[in-house]
């Protein structure tokens, strides 16, 4: 897989995983930061830098998956006022049951 297509699939995976994160602020941060990071990363040409950035992206994806579970277990049960008022800010429901970590 070329670096570009791997980056694209990693980006999609990050955004998908981020949509299920239970905490509103972290959820929004993942969307914003992933877009920013991959947009800036697309401009890189040095293959070593691209490789290390992809590795970082893979590690962060694993962190998102693990911490989704932790925040789901220990997070609050009551939503914040933005999520109450605007359903668009709520997490995208339960992740698929076969979530492999």
């Amino acid at each position, binding site marked *: 897989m070329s670096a570009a297509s791997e980056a694209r699939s990693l980006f999609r995976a990050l955004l998908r995983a981020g949509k299920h994160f239970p905490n*509103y*602020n*972290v959820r*929004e*941060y993942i969307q*914003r*930061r992933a877009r*920013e*990071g991959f947009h800036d990363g697309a401009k890189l040409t040095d293959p070593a830098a691209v490789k290390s950035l992809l590795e970082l992206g893979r590690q*962060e994806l694993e*962190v*998102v998956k*693990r*911490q989704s579970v*932790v*925040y789901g277990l*220990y997070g*609050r*049960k*009551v*939503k*914040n*006022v*933005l*999520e*109450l008022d*605007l*359903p668009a*800010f*709520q997490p995208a429901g339960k992740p698929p049951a076969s979530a492999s970590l």
Partner: protein
Amino acid sequence: MLQRVACQLLQASRLAAPTMGNQVIRGLSAVPQPAEDADSGPSTSGGRSGVIEKKGIALRGVPLYLDMQATTPMDPRVIDAMLPYMTEQFGNPHSRTHLYGWESEEAVEDARKQIAGLIGADPKEIIFTSGATESNNTAIKGVAGYFKDKKKHVITTQTEHKCVLDSCRWLQQRGWDVTYLPVRPDGLLDLAQLEAAIRPDTALVSVMAVNNEIGVVQPMDEIGELCRKRGVYFHTDGAQAVGKIPVDVNKSKIDLMSISGHKIYGPKGIGALYVRRRPRVRLEALMSGGGQERGLRSGTVPTPLVVGLGAACAVAAREMESDLAHVRRLEERLRTGITSRLQGVHLNGPADLARRYPGNLNLSFAYVEGESLIMGLKEIAVSSGSACTSASLEPSYVLRALGVEEELAHTSIRYGMGRFTTDAEVDRAIDMTVSHVNKLREMSPLWEMVQEGVDLKSIQWAQH
């Protein structure tokens, strides 16, 4: 007059007995309970909507967090780094004889490297403490203790954090002279005054890099240059600066710096003290014991917390540019959003963003009573500059040092934005602030008089 009455009424209601029932049950439970009772109230289509009731206030949902100077949420990457050391890798880093100790020590040393990398220091120059308060105490009392026969003078500013001011007061009680330098109305230190204050028997100059109440960034390079030239140690409380703005201990010639974990999306209860080794900074230890941390801070180093601090620093180093740009954009949005819809709003601190950390926006709203403003903004979590929200009625000493009038000091609100703050939260904060200030002003006879063009200062109030 109105303010004092209102504050007194609120004081009285606060002293009434708080509800104890839930606390007792929670104390006996072995399972961590969520802070709210989520099952009261009907559930809506979006999931559970409970009513949270605390301190006599009912909230329909969790407030939006805009108080990043008080503390920050832990970054999930930090929690992820800490959990292995809170579960199965629980060894004491000072145990030399088995795997648990070896892996724990390795984690601590890795964290030390991460912190040193963020500030441009050598890992051997980082000492772990329980937080910036302990670091400040160690720096000030430690240096003074070492030089008590040779030096007699310490210089600090009037806008320092309470722990620095209190440590200096402690020194004064033991015969040291302390100069509390005043600041200009925008919060910046006057370098000429600092130069004039340094004496041959000055041991230490302590100036915080970024102020926690108004966000002013002091001219660190110039202060460091001055102190190095005069042979005085330069200590800085970097709690609000490290990880948020670029800090380089060699560029700014800093000799001692306090770092706080929970201000940079790390855990609470951990901090670090940077102690320069070239040229060597001498200090006495405050904590006696087994000589850990190069003899400067005895006690078992808490591996999970230290790993968290290290991870927070590593993340901050990577994210600093992105965070700064984000926070600058949000500050612009918040400030122009409020000032375009309200008059009589004063910014406390320098208007120039080159001299202020944008994540800290401290605004005073004229002709509005401070406590009622804060009580009305219950859907956003912000802090007030006045200590009216704590036990005493005195306005914040930082605002007083800036020369802010007492009425304005009472109505100051500090908005703290950070990595995880969103545009929608800022918009909601603007709407709530504007609507609540307008509501309070509508009720205010002082505001009516101002609208009619009366100059409040020229009024002779009748004595009853």
